[in-house]
């Protein structure tokens, strides 16, 4: 019997994503799209501000996705996880593309914790 959580959909925790692009580069079908910019963050007492990536957009085209899970396995920050949800049919091909909001909604309750 296939476990209920297997091969459902892939969910994103945007707060854990560092825009490192590993998932984007390793995806066999190139179905992940990521936009980010850098910001300067000054910590009190630090010698200089540090530069951090800020995630602007993260899209998975589930029309192309092979559900191989390479992105989930390779993410160094557990920002991607398998979700048991499977009702993601769409009435247009473009409707299969999911952004940050939809991907976060699918975050599984049994997955890695959502707080950092």
């Amino acid at each position, binding site marked *: 019997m*296939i476990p209920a959580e297997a*091969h*459902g*959909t892939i969910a994103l925790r945007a707060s854990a994503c560092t825009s490192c692009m590993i998932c984007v580069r390793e995806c*066999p*079908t190139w179905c992940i799209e990521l936009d980010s910019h850098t910001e300067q963050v000054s910590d009190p007492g630090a010698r200089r501000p540090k530069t951090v990536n800020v995630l602007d957009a993260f899209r998975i*085209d*589930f*029309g*192309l*996705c*092979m*559900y*191989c899970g390479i992105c989930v396995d390779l993410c160094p920050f557990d920002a991607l996880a398998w979700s048991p949800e*499977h*009702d*993601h*049919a*769409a*009435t*247009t*091909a473009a*409707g*299969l593309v999911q952004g940050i909001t939809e991907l976060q909604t699918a975050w599984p309750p049994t997955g890695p914790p959502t707080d950092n």
Partner: protein
Amino acid sequence: MTLHSLPALERRYRVTGHPELRVAILDVGLACCALEVGAAITAGMLVPEVSSDTGGDGCVVSVLLISGTVTDALAPGVIRAWGALEDPKLAVSFGACANTGGPYWDAPTVTKGIDQLIPISVYIPGCPPRPEALVAGLVRLARPAVLTHSDQSGESR
């Protein structure tokens, strides 16, 4: 491969948990996705109708289920199968290959989405999609907006 006799292979199903839905599925199983349709039947999610089963008021919608990789060699057969189905009919694209070409997005001999050839009402993502996803997609077919879309596209075909 001849596809002339395919409409005879159309089978009527009831969808477990959705008594309002009666579908006659012509499964164009072109690759591994086709196994998931069998899995849905084996798991009892799709129940084949017996010939004596005439209950239910809802009309039976003919569903062309394209599950698998549509190569250029098989594309004309898919178009013929769609033309042979009687109205009211809807086409469902099942799995990444039928949706966009999937893992074969770069192959010269694979159709990049069956919607280039026939009007698709519901796209089910997955590689392959789970049987539960098939049922969820069929339930989505029952939505009136989808049926309206089918009427419009039916006129032009």
